[in-house]
């Protein structure tokens, strides 16, 4: 009995520490610079396409064996969860932006479709990539090739959340639990509408 009480007390004490943080809301919205991306299958991504919908942007690269497919799979599940929580026009659009245009330009358009038919993937000029990376306080670095010619690309693990007014509002963080991430996004949208009204 004593042990049980001790265990329950430990559970209560440990709960806030073990609770996962799925996202961070920015103190102030951040304006994004002009940018323009295409993907070879007729889709475009620019400041205009951000308007009037929520957008989630993940930076990555196609030769990414583990983290990128894992994150995209979790974002797909998150979007499914959002569909249960918000109006269809508030379900975020998911964009994958490759920071490795040299290897990825040819294949980029179909990558995101593998995870969800509505997801979009783009790459483009390094200037535009770098502008968006900087504005979202993100990071990437092309590593030196190994003996087989493969090079890794390090990139921010967090994902940017852009509001319907085109400003950056939050970052999503690993482990991207779909239910908790959807809950975070839903609360973010409620706060956004409250601030706008």
């Amino acid at each position, binding site marked *: 009995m004593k042990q049980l009480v001790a265990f329950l007390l430990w559970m209560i004490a440990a709960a806030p520490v073990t609770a996962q943080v799925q996202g961070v809301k920015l103190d102030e919205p951040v304006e994004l610079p002009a940018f323009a991306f295409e993907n070879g299958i007729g889709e475009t991504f620019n400041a205009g396409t951000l308007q009037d919908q929520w957008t989630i942007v993940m930076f990555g690269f196609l030769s990414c064996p*583990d983290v990128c497919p894992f994150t995209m799979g979790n974002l797909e599940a998150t979007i*499914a969860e959002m569909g249960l929580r918000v109006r269809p026009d508030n379900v975020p659009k998911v964009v994958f932006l490759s920071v490795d245009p040299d290897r990825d330009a040819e294949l980029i358009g179909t990558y995101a479709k593998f995870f969800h038919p509505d997801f979009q993937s783009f790459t483009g000029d390094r200037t535009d990539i770098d502008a968006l990376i900087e504005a979202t306080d993100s990071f990437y670095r092309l590593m030196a090739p190994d003996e087989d010619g493969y090079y890794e690309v390090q990139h921010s693990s967090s994902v940017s959340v852009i509001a319907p007014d085109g400003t950056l509002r939050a970052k999503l963080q690993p482990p991207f639990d779909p239910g908790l991430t959807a809950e975070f996004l839903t609360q973010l949208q409620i706060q956004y509408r409250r601030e706008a009204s």
Partner: protein
Amino acid sequence: MKPVLMGLVAACFPAALWAQDITATEAVVPLAPPGVMTHAAYLTLHNTGQGSRTLIGVQAAGYAMAHLHSSEDKNGVATMSVLHGLEIDAGQTVTFEQGGMHIMLMHPAAPLSEGAEVALTLQFANGETVEVTAPVKRLGYGS
């Protein structure tokens, strides 16, 4: 009768691991996006033996290369490092899973569809090899 039965069992499970202390379970190759030249395999390894074993390499049939890798989040940056030797103590179970340790598969000879199988050969420091068959599956996610 008994030896015959044993022989029959052995014939049914050519990769039965009586001679080896490492068992591999839950092997899977998640279906990869079309055209992607680099993806991953995952599995769980259990050392049922008395001594530790060190996994030093892997080969994957149908791929130009396969490497033991580990994904790590370093201050918000997703990075990968090569595992040069993974020690598995007696009785220990190690799990290769998404967002952590993985077998990086590079340059498939042909695209693999769901239901295909990838033959993996795990190489250990003592010269042992363990054969594992990993089915290609589309992974589901969700809470």
